[in-house]
């Protein structure tokens, strides 16, 4: 059984550094579940390496972390990695793009060209950062609920959930966190917490997928 995963994670500004660090948690989980992870990170997250590994490892799951828009996913230093005219490489794969906007035209095109399912965000993906914790993203209490809600999609897939279930896990986790913040009174009293609340809601609103909701990594 193919258990190859291709991860791409950039780290060239504050936001991508947070994605980079939190993606490490997913990679660790994937390793524990017996997946073979190819990890394209920082300056190695370029077009040449991406397509090379896509061909040589034929991954079942591609997890993209970086900057994006409706038509393009970008790698290190904003190099175009996948555009609407280069989605054929995603054929027969499940893709999760943790980046702004990619689930729209890019996701549509990928699925039209044979990508099994494309999970992503239809608009922006923002991260609240506690200034004093910006060097240690995994210990940032303001960012943690937002990053966990997006990480859970990849970890749910790795655990054998379907695409639809993985996305639903994220929605449920967000709802639980929103309620916790609101009903504990923290939204009213804790200014920092408000940014967590608002970004949790907004990112979740834009979470979307195209393709087969019943697809999964483990058959």
């Amino acid at each position, binding site marked *: 059984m193919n258990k190859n995963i291709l991860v791409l994670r950039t780290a060239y500004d504050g936001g991508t550094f947070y994605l980079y660090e939190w993606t490490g948690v997913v990679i660790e989980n994937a390793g524990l579940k017996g997946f073979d992870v190819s990890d394209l990170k920082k300056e190695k997250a370029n077009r040449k390496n991406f397509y090379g590994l896509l061909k040589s490892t034929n991954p079942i799951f591609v997890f993209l972390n970086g900057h994006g828009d409706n038509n393009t996913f970008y790698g290190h230093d904003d190099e175009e990695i996948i555009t609407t005219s280069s989605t054929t490489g995603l054929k027969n794969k499940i893709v999760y793009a943790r980046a702004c906007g990619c689930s729209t035209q890019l996701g549509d095109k990928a699925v039209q060209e044979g990508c099994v399912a494309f999970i992503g965000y239809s608009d922006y993906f923002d991260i609240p950062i506690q*200034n004093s914790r910006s060097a240690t993203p995994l210990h940032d209490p303001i960012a943690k609920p937002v990053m966990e809600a997006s990480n859970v999609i990849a970890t749910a897939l790795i655990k054998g959930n379907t695409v639809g279930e993985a996305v639903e896990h994220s929605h449920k986790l967000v709802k639980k966190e929103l309620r916790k913040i609101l009903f504990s009174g923290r939204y009213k009293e804790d200014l920092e917490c408000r940014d967590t609340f608002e970004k949790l809601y907004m990112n979740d609103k834009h979470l979307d997928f195209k393709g087969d909701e019943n697809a999964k990594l483990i058959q």
Partner: protein
Amino acid sequence: MYDEKTLRLIIARLSAKSPNVSIAIVGKGTFNRDEMINQVKEHTKIGEAIVKRELEFIRDMPRLSIILSEEDE
């Protein structure tokens, strides 16, 4: 793009945010409260993106309250 009244509303809303938190707009930069206010005041593209986000959240508040009051399945 946005009228002055809207911009004043958003600047007031941003001013009420914590100075200890920044927002990373992935791939476009990280902005603390005062930087966000400056971007809005200077009518930059980032400023427009910030106004869009703030307005969307304000407009979604009724929807959000319905979502959070719904029973879980």
